[in-house]
């Protein structure tokens, strides 16, 4: 069990700086998810913790130990790879035992730990098979088993669910979360999928272009995004952004719709952020955004309505009983209390909710 501390860590590949100076503390026992679009540096951060990449500058601590020049073998971490990276020439049992053999554990203890992990992951029947004879989901489990038996200080997961089909992904997601509650070990999980991020994390680290955009609980990141990037990245479908001007507590959108936002400071130009689930249909004639429906996506539990406003496409999530149809006109009420304001130039949040 251990905390992890980045102090001014920089990573350059040649002359390309993928991680500008970065500070971050991950507490003991915490389940932290690094989330961001591909190329944001989240995997590089994880690989630096694993020791598979070395920091160009700065200091990295696992517990109280500075690990900059410690090889992966001596960091007491285990990692689940995106493609599982099982040893093809070894059986499931040998795959799981390998890391323990490398640490010269007594045979009896190796056998016991492998059996326990196999029971936990329901792999008992597969122990003598080779990876080739396993399905994707089974391989994924073996990769987890190989990580668990080591009983490391830190677990690292590098997009371990991206090669699974949707149904299995949801199942394994729940299993990993349950596992984290059983094992109470520090876990770091990398994903580009914001649903995975939201559902699993104690804390999210949202990254873009190697920079931390926001660190916080999923609720905090969702409800109080630090900037427009985070607001747009977290939440599905994405938050809607309307360019507007603000004067005397009234916002005017590009299509002329006026929206009362009492208590807001005047701005010539501002970006208004509204989550799709907070735009609800109201009777025609009520104050709100009058839109023509382009496209309807029924999800069962609710329905996504696509519309355009001043040339830009937006989405609202409405109750299914509304039964909207393409071509219909709909009035969407916007709750002033749940509107976000962003600076249109810097993207910084001006006001939450």
């Amino acid at each position: 069990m251990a905390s992890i501390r980045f102090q001014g860590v920089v990573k350059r590949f040649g002359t390309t700086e993928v991680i500008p100076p970065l500070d971050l503390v991950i507490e003991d026992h915490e389940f932290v998810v690094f989330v961001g679009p591909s190329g944001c540096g989240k995997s590089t951060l994880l690989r630096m913790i694993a020791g598979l990449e070395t920091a160009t500058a700065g200091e990295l601590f696992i517990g109280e130990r500075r690990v900059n020049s410690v090889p992966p073998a001596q960091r007491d971490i285990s990692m689940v790879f995106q493609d599982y990276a099982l040893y093809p020439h070894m059986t499931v049992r040998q795959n799981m035992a390998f890391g323990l053999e490398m640490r010269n554990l007594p045979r009896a203890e190796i056998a016991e730990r492998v059996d326990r992990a196999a029971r936990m992951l329901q792999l008992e029947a597969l122990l003598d098979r080779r990876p080739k004879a396993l399905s994707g989901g089974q391989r994924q489990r073996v990769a987890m088993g190989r990580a668990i038996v080591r009983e490391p200080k830190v677990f690292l997961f590098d997009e371990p669910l991206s090669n699974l089909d949707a149904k299995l992904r949801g199942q394994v997601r729940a299993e990993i979360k349950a596992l984290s509650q059983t094992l109470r070990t520090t876990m770091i999980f990398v994903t580009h999928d914001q649903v995975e991020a939201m559902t699993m994390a104690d804390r999210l680290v949202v990254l873009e272009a190697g920079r931390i955009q926001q660190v916080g609980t999923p609720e905090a990141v969702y409800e109080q995004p630090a900037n427009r990037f985070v607001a747009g990245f977290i939440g599905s479908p994405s938050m809607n952004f309307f360019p507007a001007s603000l004067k005397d507590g009234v916002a005017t959108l590009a299509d002329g719709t006026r929206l009362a936002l009492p208590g807001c400071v005047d701005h010539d130009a501002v970006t208004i952020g509204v989550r799709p689930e907070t735009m609800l249909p109201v009777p025609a004639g009520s104050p709100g955004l009058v839109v023509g429906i382009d496209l309807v996506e029924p999800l069962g539990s609710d329905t996504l309505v696509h519309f355009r406003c001043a040339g830009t496409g937006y989405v609202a999530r409405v109750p299914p009983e509304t039964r909207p149809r393409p071509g219909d006109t709909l009035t969407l009420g916007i709750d002033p209390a749940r509107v976000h304001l962003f600076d249109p130039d810097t993207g910084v949040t001006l006001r939450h909710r």
Partner: protein
Amino acid sequence: MERPAWLRLLTVVQLGIIGIVILAPLGWMVLSSFKSSQDVTAYPPSLIFAPTLDNYVHLLGTTPFIDYARNSLIVTIGSTVLGIVLGVPSAYVVSLTRISWPALLTLAARMAPGTLFLLPWYVMFRELGLIGSYWALILTHAVITMPIVIWVLLPSFDAIPRSVLEAAQVDGCGIIRSLWRIALPLVSAGLVVASILAFVFSWNYFLFALVLANSETKTLIAAAFNFVGEGSTDWGGLMAAATLIALPPLLLAAAVQRWLISGLTMGAVKG
């Protein structure tokens, strides 16, 4: 897809021509080794003759053929093992680091004509007192075997997913253990191919043995040269010797044919 008949015919003709070019000299060699001295030099050569073992009896009776064969085995096995011991880790590191110039250098050394090295080596080995020793031949033949091992194994090592080797690192392997426990078992087919090719090339290499060996350590192939005399050549004896010399590589290749083909094409397509 069904190919047109003329294309299939062309393929057969092409394979036939290649087969004849490769097999005819071999056939000639084997047949000649069973001919009497009159038949060997007969013109035109006859396909029907009274076969005789005289050449073999004469060869084994009058020359230390068995001693030469032992020399050849010692040198070939020694240089093949040395080539593997040096070449396997080299190929692994080249594959990991993508620093390929050292591998290119060994290839260049392999491509350069052997005569280029001969004089400096002769001087060096004389200073070391190694002329006529097995070591002189094993070391020089490693120049033949090591590049083969490196270049046959490189694509096999490259075909191992990086994440598998990284997983081994995280699991506690240093580079040597990851080679020994993970990478090497995964390239075993390539290793067999590399060993056989190295064995064959070393077995057949002529020049270094001619100069650096003495009468005690001479290899078969260099000894066979003795049959070519200044005035007359014992063609029957030479062909008998050549047939016996060609046997071990042929038997080896036949024994592991299937691996040989899969190993040579490995890395070309992802398995």
